């Protein structure tokens, strides 16, 4: 989406901001060290599910905000899938107006407290920070985003923006994960009547069932939802579109546009012998039991989980890191990441890998499971693995792992979490007539507009991408909202 450079310039040319820029020279600003995120001690973390990163103090935040050079042509914004006015909000922090900084964030991002925590800033905004060219650590944009939105929330200063003139057109979002929430927030701000349908009993999709409390406290997710409700978004839980209610029925009820953000539900398994043994979970199941169903509080909560002492998590992504760090908190003596490539190729965020290591997680890289061995009750007891070498680069640009013959050995395990990815959930594509589905089961859309083969149906997030990040899903939700607005206002002029 193009950034409105005129708005950015007008924002930057405000008197206070020019004055603020003049207070310190670029040289002085760039000489300041990057702030370190305060965090809980690793031993303390292992004892429970408290958030690991504890957040910047006002002092630290204002100091970090000074590092931002307030570039006249900021490059950081181009790295943000939702085009946050980054210098704009950072300078408000430097000025000390934290609530205004939060409002600036919310002009473009409905979920800043979430993004500040889970976005991979190191490959997005921060990767495009001007400091990179100077071979200096980038401005800690993510920490600052989190700081501003936390301040506003904790101060009870959340202000609901004025809604544009009411547009009497009903639109629906299917699923309530980050793509749908972003879509819903944007459409509501433009005055549309938005209803979000969620299949589960809890809202927010992967933010609720997937990402653990220690990385994203659920109280924050709830307050972001409350903000959307204040914007007028209606949420319907326990409604499975395509099952409980069909798209055609929603059309009959007056819904004129649909955004499908149903996610990449179906967990992948490796289809190796013994994989259905007791104690072998998909990462989706493991995390859902713990995060959504609160199995870590069993038996106070009714949903149980196998609390393994020797836990192997297969995979090298963020979901694998979330799973293995969850295992640590559930009392594992030995928690292992088993990954077939080397640490360099791991898709997980560096911060997550680093935190996992601090918490005592072992990394068995260039190692791949080939069989699980169970006892007479069917409970997994051992895992046969194979050592891998790295061959030539594959389609993903990463070097392809190649099995080393004769390198097999056994590892004792009592819990295994398979975190090797997901496929798109088949329920929605199966249920909507006329929609085009790729061979991977994803919904095919126009990449510019996120519009599907059915004109009133748009889609975004993992149901289109097959497995990506929160922020890319949010970017899709935003793009779809803009395109749907244009489509609907064109189709129903005078609304």
């Amino acid at each position, binding site marked *: 989406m193009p950034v409105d450079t005129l708005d950015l310039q007008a924002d930057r040319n405000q008197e206070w901001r020019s004055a603020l820029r003049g207070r310190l020279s670029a040289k002085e600003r760039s000489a300041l060290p990057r702030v370190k995120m305060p965090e809980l001690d690793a031993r303390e973390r292992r004892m429970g599910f408290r958030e690991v990163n504890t957040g910047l103090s006002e002092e630290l935040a204002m100091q970090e905000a000074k590092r931002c050079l307030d570039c006249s042509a900021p490059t950081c914004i181009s790295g943000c899938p939702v085009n946050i006015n980054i210098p704009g909000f950072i300078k408000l922090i430097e000025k000390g107006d934290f609530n205004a900084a939060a409002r600036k964030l919310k002009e473009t991002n409905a979920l800043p407290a979430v993004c500040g925590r889970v976005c991979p800033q190191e490959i997005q905004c921060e990767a495009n920070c001007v400091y990179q060219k100077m071979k200096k650590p980038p401005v800690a944009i993510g920490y600052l985003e989190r700081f501003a939105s936390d301040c506003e929330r904790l101060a009870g200063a959340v202000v609901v923006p004025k809604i544009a003139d009411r547009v009497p057109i009903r639109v629906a979002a299917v699923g309530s994960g980050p793509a749908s929430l972003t879509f819903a927030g944007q459409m509501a701000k433009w005055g549309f009547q938005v209803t979000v349908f969620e*299949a589960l009993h809890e809202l927010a999709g992967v933010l609720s069932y997937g990402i653990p409390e220690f990385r994203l406290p659920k109280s924050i997710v709830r307050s972001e939802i409350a903000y959307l409700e204040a914007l007028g978004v209606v949420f319907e839980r326990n409604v499975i579109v395509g099952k409980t209610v069909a798209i055609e029925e929603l059309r009959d009820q007056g819904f004129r546009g649909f955004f499908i953000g149903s996610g990449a539900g179906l*967990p992948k398994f490796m289809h190796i012998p013994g994989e259905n043994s007791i104690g072998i979970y998909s990462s*989706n199941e493991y995390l859902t039991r713990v995060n959504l169903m609160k199995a870590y509080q069993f038996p106070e909560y009714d*949903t149980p989980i196998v609390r393994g002492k020797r836990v192997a998590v297969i995979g090298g992504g963020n979901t694998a890191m979330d799973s293995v760090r969850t295992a640590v908190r559930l009392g594992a003596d030995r928690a292992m990441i088993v990954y077939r490539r080397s640490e360099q190729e791991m898709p997980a965020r560096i911060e997550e890998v680093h935190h996992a290591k601090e918490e005592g997680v072992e990394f068995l890289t260039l190692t791949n499971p080939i069989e699980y061995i169970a006892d007479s009750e069917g409970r997994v007891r051992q895992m046969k693995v194979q050592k891998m070498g790295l061959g030539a680069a594959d389609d993903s640009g990463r070097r392809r792992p190649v099995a080393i013959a004769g390198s097999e050995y056994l590892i004792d395990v009592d819990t295994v979490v398979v975190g090797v990815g997901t496929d798109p959930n088949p329920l929605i594509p199966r249920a909507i007539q006329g929609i085009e589905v790729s061979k991977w089961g994803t919904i095919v859309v126009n990449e510019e507009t996120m519009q599907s083969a059915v004109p009133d149906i748009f889609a975004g997030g993992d149901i289109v991408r097959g497995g990506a990040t929160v922020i890319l899903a949010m970017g899709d939700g935003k793009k779809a909202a803009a395109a749907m607005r244009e489509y609907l206002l064109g189709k129903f002029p005078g609304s």
Partner: protein
Amino acid sequence: MNKVVEKTVLSENVVKLVIEAALISRKQSPGQFVIVRTDEKGERIPLTIADADRENGTITLIVQKVGTSSCKITGLNPGDSLLDVSGPLGRPTHVEKLGTVLACGGGVGIAPLYPIARAFQQAGNKLIAVLGARNRELLILEREMAAFADEVIVMTDDGSHGRKGVITVGVEDVLKREPVHLAVAIGPAVMMKFTALLTKRYSVPTIASLNTIMVDGTGMCGACRVSVGGKTRFVCVDGPEFDAHLIDYDEMIQRLNTYKAEERKSFDGYLKSLS
């Protein structure tokens, strides 16, 4: 919130609840299930829809007391509510006119069998039901089945009602006696396993409806996975019905026992909380 409008005790351990669920009542077909949750701390429990009333907007659930969650559900009275009910989930039964259909139900499995058997009968099939239970007191829905079935054969372990013996005895009598074009087996895993072994010997196509452990019920977690013909399938989105001759019952039985110890611990705590 879904209100309980009617409650009937069918046997010492089995309760029938009629629940307000307007959308689901209009959408459900035989063979489908719902996921329910009783309270904020409750599990997500899959329950097959035993009946539905579109006009009144209700569905019927038949629940056997086994542990904490099922006791929480069976403990509900008219006026109480389930916190969450979502569905209808799973693929509906493929119903067509085949000739003679043999509906085999064991224990509380007779509940999900009932709407499927009725649908086959309504599609023009001759419907023979073989119902099995430990004793007369535990046998459910016999009268309801008899209302439409061409024949109902009852088997009890202790001979207190119908014939004495396990369900496969009654099933085999029918298989010996006349051609059967399809068998439907629903009940405890062991009952389905042996029924399937038997119908295989007689080369009668057979479907079984599985009730595995689930969490979300929408294809997201894989807790419900079973091996069917050597392939891993998800009961929630690929099932709940599969070719009964291809299911790996032993693996399924083991997986059903995953949380045996935890379930006991939870149930002990629950019973203590009641006293």
